[in-house]
């Protein structure tokens, strides 16, 4: 990468935000379509999924937000050695402000002390930025727009949990995740996707759980025991019968994605990041060469 330190890609970041806010990823849309077939004709559940799919189409066609709650923009940025993360952060903040002005994002950053909305989605530690240096010579940006309704039903457990009979093992994880789905009912805009993290401390566990949401629905877990637990939890969560919007029905979650990290001997945390059906994620690769900046969206 030539001159990676001063790469200018604000426009590309604005476009990334636009894509995330207005275009539901293909795997999510496919899963919602499969969900329709699971629900009875004439049921409120089927009606909800039909409206959702109609909305997805409209948002894409008219380039308007899928959901009015465009959430917390979470950027995971992978960069080569030599890139100024400060300079990239400045461009990200500029980009979300522009995207807000263009009505791709709702102004969502509120000062908790004064109640004042900044008006442009920038504020203290807002948007969320995580930088990762990697060995490759281009930049990669993943973006998730994480809505507030589903954030409010996201939760964390400390095992063992006597109420749920959950010990420090994968069956314990299974129990608390099912409880989280029951607690959420339709409030997180079911059918959702669950990002689950096992281990870590309270802070790192929530971050890990959210990072699972970047995985495609069809992306198999490399760990066989976690892959099996993902399948079991998807099936059992749907057996709860909560259904789209909590109307009752067979489609409650569209997928479960689990990651793990080392924990302290004393702690065994399980975090559940509930993501609504509008699982808005978008990615791009950015490289700078003699011909200028090249951008590929995925």
């Amino acid at each position, binding site marked *: 990468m030539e001159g990676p330190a001063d790469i200018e890609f604000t426009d590309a970041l604005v476009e990334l935000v636009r894509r995330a806010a207005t275009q539901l990823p293909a795997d999510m849309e496919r899963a919602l379509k499969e969900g329709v077939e699971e629900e009875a004709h004439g049921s409120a559940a089927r009606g909800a999924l039909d*409206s959702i799919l109609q909305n997805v189409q409209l948002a894409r066609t008219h380039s308007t937000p899928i959901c009015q709650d465009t959430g917390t923009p979470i950027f995971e940025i992978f960069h080569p050695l030599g890139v100024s993360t400060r300079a990239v952060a400045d461009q990200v903040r500029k980009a979300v402000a522009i995207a807000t002005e263009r009505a791709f994002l709702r*102004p969502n950053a509120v000062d908790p002390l004064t109640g004042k909305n900044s008006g442009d989605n920038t504020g203290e530690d807002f948007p969320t930025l995580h930088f990762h240096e990697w060995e490759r010579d281009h930049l990669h940006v993943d973006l998730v727009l994480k809505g507030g309704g589903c954030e409010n039903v996201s939760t964390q457990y400390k095992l063992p949990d006597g109420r749920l009979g959950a010990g420090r093992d994968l069956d314990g994880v299974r129990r608390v995740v099912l409880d989280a789905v029951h607690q959420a009912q339709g409030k997180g805009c079911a059918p959702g996707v669950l990002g689950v993290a096992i281990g870590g401390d309270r802070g790192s566990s929530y971050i890990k759980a959210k990072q699972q949401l970047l995985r495609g629905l069809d992306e198999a877990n490399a760990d066989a025991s976690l892959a099996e637990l993902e399948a079991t939890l998807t099936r059992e969560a749907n057996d709860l019968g909560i259904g789209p919007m*909590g109307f009752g029905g067979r489609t409650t979650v569209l997928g479960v994605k689990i990651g793990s990290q080392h924990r302290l001997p004393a702690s065994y945390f399980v975090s559940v990041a509930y993501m609504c059906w509008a699982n808005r994620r978008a990615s791009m690769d950015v490289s700078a060469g003699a011909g200028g900046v090249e951008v590929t969206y995925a």
Partner: protein
Amino acid sequence: MRRLTIPIPDEEIRALRVGDAIQLNGTIVTGRDAAHKFMIEHFVRQSVAEEDAELYDELRRLLNGGVIYHCGPVVRQHQDGSWTFVAAGPTTSIREEVYQPDVIAHFNLKGVIGKGGMGAGTLEACRSQPAVYLHAIGGAASLIARSVDEVVAVHKLEFGVPEAMWVIRVKDFPAVVTMDSHEESLHKRVEEESRKKLADLLAR
């Protein structure tokens, strides 16, 4: 599909049952966390201050027999100062549970639109008023915005765009009755049934 027009007469409310799909017509007002807190603190629990009198009178007129919508929209402002709703789905209603019964009674609301359902206090207010809880499809924001014909006015914009009280004229706004005036709540039913299924799964 039943069409409802604001102001909604009590007999039409009483005829509605959980599961009924409706289309709403008329002028409604958005209000979520900041607006509910404000209405309780400035209108319901104390006499109305002079600087709030105009807003109070307008809300009384709009909400009498009317509907409040738990929504924080994405809006676009035009050169002439007018506004358009770009995306306008419902927000989670349960946060307003502590305020809702008093707001329903004070303003004679006939309906509350939101998502996720509300609790026992609101269900009781729906019975006594009478009123209904109307569930819009969460996240279907571009679709729902198309049923907003006109942004008539905005109040309390100092709360920020999502929290302001937007007065909007809607045409065939789609929703489902999930709490009716006969003490029926779909949310209560689904919560209880899913709790039993959870117990079965945890017994394994």
